[in-house]
């Protein structure tokens, strides 16, 4: 299982990641990014990687199994 790591101080809510992985990420009514699942499996790995890549302000990354957040 992998997981997203969100740097909420950088996230500006552009929502580009949501378009890349709408089943994993969403913007709430306040325009704040919400991670829809704590972790995700291999089937979602490509969409998750894409979502992290397209973040226009480098606020989102994917961490692999067992990787500590830094």
């Amino acid at each position, binding site marked *: 299982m992998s997981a997203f790591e969100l740097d909420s*101080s950088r996230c*500006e*809510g552009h929502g580009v990641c949501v378009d890349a992985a709408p089943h994993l990420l969403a913007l709430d009514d306040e325009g704040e990014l919400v991670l829809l699942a704590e972790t995700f499996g291999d089937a979602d790995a490509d969409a998750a990687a894409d979502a992290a890549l397209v973040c*226009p302000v480098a606020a989102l990354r994917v961490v692999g199994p067992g990787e500590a957040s830094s």
Partner: protein
Amino acid sequence: MTTATEPLDLFSDEVLRDPYPAYAQLREAGDAVWLPEHEVWALPHYRNVFAALHAPDVFSSASGVGITERLNRAQSGSTLTSDPPYHDQVRSLVSRHLTPRALREINAEVEAWADRLVLGLLERDSFEVVRDFAQAFPLSLVPDLLGWPIDEGREILLDWASAGFNAFGPANERTLAGLHHFGDMHEFLHRMSQPGNLRAGSWGAELVEEAQRGEIGAELVPALLGDFLFPSMDTSVSALSSLVDLLGRHPEQYALLRAEPDLVPAAFNEIVRFEAPLRGFTRLALAGHRLGDHVVSEGDRVYLLFASANRDASFWSSDPDRFDITRPDVSKHLGFGHGIHGCVGQALSRLEGHSLLKAMIRHVEHIEVGPATWRLHNTIRGIESMTATFEGSRRA
């Protein structure tokens, strides 16, 4: 060949007018191409521009993001020309007003404004795209939000922004011609940073009050006012001019957009991909770093060509020289830069662009454009002048 020296001058009139053949030549030449005249390594490929933008600890902005070292020194201290942690703190003072969420309160106002502009242009036989369409928005919106005094002229802001952006290039005649503006601009921003000069309740007045209360350094205020103002001018004018140009020259794409209004965000992305308003910025390598087949050495300056990355056939899944609003991977474009220095005003730019596109598809059936002349500018890729006609149902 992995690295090369390229004799072509990226800042000649010919290349500035039509840079894409030169970018293709650079991409062909190697991962990093030495430009001896400017003593920088040009990075023309998407993968390397992206990698450098996402390694800000190696590729530093703090010593400036332009081509010329002594001009870089004059532009220090802004959000654009800083590294974390200082960068993050300063950027947040600007971004707090520019996030999609913060802009919600002006969405309706901007959309109504766009509607009025388009309806007004429909009444005319023809209009000048840059002056009457593209400049109208940036010149009124950001200065208003910043609290610009009603009796201060605004056209001068365009000249100042243009001079500032030219100075990110080499110290050529275009840069030198604008240097005389710097004193006036500096004096003006300092005057606006004094309490009472910006409209109460505005974004700018808020910064001035925060400085008075000691929450931010008073010396930051002029730079932050500049951060709000100047990047919102030339770049937006370029994107909005290209919007009319590209949809006018591709009537089948415009018809598709009218039939499928959900394509508005993708269409605006494609416009910013196809004609990136900002040709590129530089970074200084603080350590050795491998980019593709090239190893950047500590102390090297690299020139990240956003506009070339956006046309790099080794990255895009379909012909990048084709304008296509249905391009599936368009949101990956680097037209707003990317990473921690990604355009802080991109949500406002999208709000402007989307509002105008939505107004156009509501009211304009057909766009007729005349020949475009392109600006000879070191940093900004944009139309100098072009005539257009909006034809609506009432005229059909």
